[in-house]
């Protein structure tokens, strides 16, 4: 077994497989976008590859962000302002570096946590058909269908986790708001009521001194 970190010479078949696997990538990153900030990501895509960009805002403010996707020529493929969640699929029309940016420039003081998942190409087949002589056995096709099902389970779980995080963030905001507002209202209530009584008393006290002065 070659030691970790060293570049062992790859047999040709493995190299071919490795290169094929290169074509399919998925990057999912959750990051914090400060207020008035813009964060861009770049990805090199080959022509004809089918790609999907999916993003969701998890915490912060109104849970919305601006998103923009450009191709190597600078043509805007996708542009949405103040979106909470969206999914966009496109096929790369040419080779080059594609750029997508998330912007929180419209917000003055809320940080946003944004999650995105950028899928490039389709996943390579589990049992590649290059060196096969027969069709897939039952075991192998069972493996393939279980793998596909598990991939979608993991995908749904991720989405559920994000929605739950969003819901919990709102619930926590609500809790703090209720606590502060209630305390503030109780204090205001006390202060205003007691102040009213003393104010009224002060009106009548002044009137009495003026009436006695008039009388004498």
């Amino acid at each position, binding site marked *: 077994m070659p030691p970790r970190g060293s570049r062992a010479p790859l047999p040709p078949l*493995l190299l071919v497989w490795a290169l094929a*696997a290169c074509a399919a990538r998925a990057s999912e990153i959750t990051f914090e976008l400060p207020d008035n900030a813009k964060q861009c990501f770049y990805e090199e895509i080959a022509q004809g590859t089918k790609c999907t960009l999916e993003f969701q805002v998890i915490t912060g403010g109104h849970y919305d962000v601006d998103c923009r996707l450009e191709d190597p020529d600078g043509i805007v493929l996708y542009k949405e302002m103040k979106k909470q969640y969206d999914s966009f699929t496109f096929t790369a029309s040419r080779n080059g570096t594609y750029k997508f940016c998330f912007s929180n420039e419209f917000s003055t003081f809320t940080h946003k946590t944004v999650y995105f998942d950028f899928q490039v190409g389709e996943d390579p087949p589990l049992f590649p058909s290059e060196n096969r002589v027969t069709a897939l056995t039952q*075991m192998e096709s069972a493996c393939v269908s279980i793998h596909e099902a*598990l991939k979608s389970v993991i995908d749904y779980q991720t989405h559920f986790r994000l929605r739950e995080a969003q819901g919990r963030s709102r619930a926590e905001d609500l*809790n703090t708001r209720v606590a502060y507002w209630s305390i503030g209202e*109780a204090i205001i209530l006390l202060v205003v009521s007691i102040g009213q009584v003393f104010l*009224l008393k002060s009106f009548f006290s002044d009137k009495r001194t003026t009436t006695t002065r008039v009388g004498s």
Partner: protein
Amino acid sequence: MKSKLIGFLMNFWISFSLALYFHTGEREEKCIIEDIPSDTLVVGNYKVQRWDIHTHGFLESAPGLGMFVTVTSPTAEVLLSKLYGPQGTFTFTSYISGEHIICFQSNSTRFAVIAGSKLRIHLDIRVGEHFLDESAIQAKDKVNEVNIRLEHLIEQIHHVTREQDYEREREEKFRKKSEETNSNILWWAIVQTLILISVGIWQIKSLRDFFISKKLV
């Protein structure tokens, strides 16, 4: 077995060209958040390049350029804090479930304003072990290949189960928070009504006594 598998896969990884990249200032710290269940292995692969003002391009390798990688657990405990070279792989296993923060900062001592340079960071982070098992290709025996695939599938299922356990924990926290909000609202509404009534009664009594003492009533 696990470490051998990881070691073997690392070789492939480092020889791949890292896909997604973003730009950052020289001394800027960039963090990403990973919300993961406990006992999950996270493997991260990065490559950093520096902008060269002379050639107006990103250098393939900048000597002496390194990257501090810091991983913080949800309880603010540092799991990993190491200086790696311009290209490297880091791994960590989460002990507690929650939001782990992975931060990158270069060890550059230059200032971006003066040098006018920026860094390009290529990043690839894998959570859990659901990358495909390339070592199966080497297996000439068909039964072995299917065995390895099945092992990989079992790993995936374990990952799904761990995520679901984590989901249960989070749902409980969420429910507690909502119930707390509910009881907060109820409690404060009662307190405010009591304050209102008692202060109202005190107002009337106080004013009545006041007017009687002033002989206006």
